[in-house]
């Protein structure tokens, strides 16, 4: 079934068998996260909602929808609607098209008039977005405008100020300015989708006039996929690692047989060029924070030699892990996952060999396995699958590769030193532990959505949620940043407690696995306790809610000296730590407040 949701999609099956597919997706044995999605449409949205549901379910997100009445998007947003208010959306998706633009220029308009129209049109949308942000404070996904498939002014339609195409282009620019100025506001690039699908087919007038769909039926899964990519990215369900095969995946030929001089990569021949372009794209993925690894059946020596090909773009240094051996690839995959301390279901496996892909599929790790068919399609296949959809590019994303590399160096140091304590001391760790600060809000929200393993409550929060906690007098919020001699790990831990009388109830307690076993959790608890005591608290109440991924912290509170208060039949447990007489754990970390 996975292949249906892989680019290029099996559109026909998605539409024809949507009812059956939905049942199958819901029947899978996974824990869905539920999200309330309000779809505010400027045209018919029913099929979009049905297809979006399938794509989200496929990403482990179980949506509940609110749909505005036909074309009531603006009224719903501006004048309120009890049903929508009660629905209290987690995400708002606004589906509008060029047909929702109220006035478009004509040839009789002057430049000034057109500028004024642009201002008015822009205002029409910005007041609505402002209102939604103010009222719901949740992520908003807004379609940009596609353009009509016909051009009254022919080629001039795009360049002349009286052209509809020109006007729409300028209006889109205003939309992007708004997106850049507002966190939590995301543009769904319909303009690209329509172009890529073929504008004429996309805007088949039959679907508008018959059913008031702004796009043709066959294009709906592409639109749904695009929205779903944004939603799953917001909720931390992006893939994190691209694991590549080498022979006939990153270069043409087999390095073990053909030798380094014999493999195809580089500018000399068309086959070499197409592999170069693919390598360049992968290198760019690294620049947006995607981790790269190699999983190849090769002698390591040959693999490294291939990656050092003078015309190659990717070098051994670009990969956080290289497994080139004769082990089965599913075993290698598990080894990479445990080395990086990342869930294997956040991996993408790129391999040209259908048999290797099938073996990986059979292993049933939840690894994404794109169909790498023909080298000229590789790049597009990876790109269109939206594995690494960017909704926020934090400075942390940009330096992630360096952080994982530093981790490898730490591991080497650990092996060279006698005791683990000596190792920790030798790291010269410095932590900054403070109340939430505006510059870290984005990262903190990201952590609440991305951390699965060391996460006691798995409470997912938007940036708005985090800001509310920060501003509320009832919450004690701390973030922890950890640096050592190999580099800065950035913000790695978040704890939030709610003050209820003399008890501090822990709503959030999480830590990035990249700093596991470094004493950071001790540093966080020491700080939390000291702040709680200054606040006049008498005890801390900890909660653990089990998920399929957070088993590693099942006994966390016990290890930290809490007493169990109760546990229910689902394994949800409550713990208490008395602050009076707390012995600080004093890890080998210098704490900066």
């Amino acid at each position: 079934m996975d292949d249906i949701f892989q680019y290029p999609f099996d559109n026909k099956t998605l539409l024809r068998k949507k009812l059956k597919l939905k049942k199958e997706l819901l029947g899978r044995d996974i824990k869905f996260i539920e999200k309330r999605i309000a779809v505010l449409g400027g045209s018919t949205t029913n099929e979009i909602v049905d297809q979006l549901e399938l794509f989200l379910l496929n990403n482990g997100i179980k949506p509940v929808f609110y749909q505005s009445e036909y074309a009531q998007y603006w009224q719903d947003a501006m004048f309120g609607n009890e049903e929508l208010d009660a629905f209290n959306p987690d995400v708002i998706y606004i589906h509008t098209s060029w047909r929702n633009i109220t006035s478009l220029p004509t040839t009789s308009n002057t430049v000034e008039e057109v500028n004024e129209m642009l201002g008015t049109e822009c205002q029409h949308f910005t007041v609505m977005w402002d209102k939604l942000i103010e009222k719901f404070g949740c992520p908003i996904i807004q379609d940009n405008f596609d353009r009509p498939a016909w051009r009254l002014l022919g080629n001039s339609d795009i360049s002349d100020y009286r052209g509809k195409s020109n006007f729409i282009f300028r209006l889109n620019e205003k939309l992007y300015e708004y997106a850049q100025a507002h966190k939590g506001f995301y543009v769904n690039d319909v303009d690209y989708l329509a172009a890529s699908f073929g504008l004429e087919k996309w805007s088949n007038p039959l679907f508008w006039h018959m059913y008031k769909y702004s796009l043709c039926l066959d294009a709906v899964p592409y639109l749904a996929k695009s929205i779903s990519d944004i939603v799953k990215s917001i909720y931390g369900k992006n893939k994190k690692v691209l694991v590549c095969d080498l022979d006939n995946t990153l270069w043409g030929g087999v390095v073990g047989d053909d030798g380094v001089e014999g493999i195809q990569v580089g500018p000399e021949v068309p086959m070499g060029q197409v592999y170069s372009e693919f390598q360049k794209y992968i290198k760019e993925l690294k620049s947006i924070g995607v981790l790269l690894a190699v999983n190849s059946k090769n002698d390591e020596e040959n693999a490294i030699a291939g990656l050092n090909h003078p015309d190659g773009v990717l070098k051994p240094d670009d990969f956080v892990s290289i497994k080139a051996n004769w082990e089965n690839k599913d075993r290698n995959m598990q080894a990479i996952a445990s080395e990086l301390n990342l869930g294997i279901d956040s991996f993408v496996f790129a391999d040209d060999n259908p048999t290797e892909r099938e073996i990986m599929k059979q292993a049933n790790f939840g690894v994404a396995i794109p169909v790498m068919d023909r080298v000229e399609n590789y790049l597009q296949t990876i790109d269109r699958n939206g594995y690494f959809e960017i909704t926020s590019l934090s400075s942390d994303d940009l330096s992630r590769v360096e952080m994982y590399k530093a981790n490898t160096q730490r591991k080497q140091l650990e092996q060279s030193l006698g005791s683990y304590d000596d190792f920790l001391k030798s790291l010269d760790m410095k932590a900054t532990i403070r109340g939430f600060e505006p510059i870290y809000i984005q990262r903190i929200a990201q952590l609440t959505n991305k951390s699965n393993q060391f996460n006691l409550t798995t409470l997912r929060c938007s940036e708005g949620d985090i800001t509310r906690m920060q501003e509320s007098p009832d919450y004690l919020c701390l973030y922890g940043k950890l640096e050592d001699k190999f580099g800065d790990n950035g913000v790695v831990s978040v704890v939030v407690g709610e003050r209820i009388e003399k008890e501090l109830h822990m709503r959030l307690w999480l830590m990035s696995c990249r700093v596991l076993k470094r004493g950071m959790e001790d540093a966080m608890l020491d700080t939390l306790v000291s702040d709680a005591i200054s606040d006049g608290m008498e005890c801390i109440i900890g909660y653990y809610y089990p998920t399929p991924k957070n088993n590693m912290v099942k006994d966390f509170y016990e290890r930290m000296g809490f007493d169990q208060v109760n546990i229910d039949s689902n394994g949800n447990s409550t713990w208490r730590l008395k602050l009076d007489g707390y012995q600080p754990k004093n890890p080998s970390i210098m704490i900066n407040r």
Partner: protein
Amino acid sequence: MERKDVLNKVQEIIRDVFDDESLVITDETVAADVDGWDSLMHIILIGTIEDEFDIKFAMKDVVGVKNVGQLVDLIKEQVD
């Protein structure tokens, strides 16, 4: 293509789209006879029939169809 083969294929499509293997479709079947066959599902049905028979309906055809029999006639016209 024989008329009864077209009808059979249409029945198969309708069963898929409404996810009900027990549906029996005849020339006289109308939308009201099938649970869930509203204007929205109708679009999917038309699209799926177009794909299956590799044909394109004209807008005036889609507007005019009253029952499955007429739909089958339209398909047969284009296929032949």
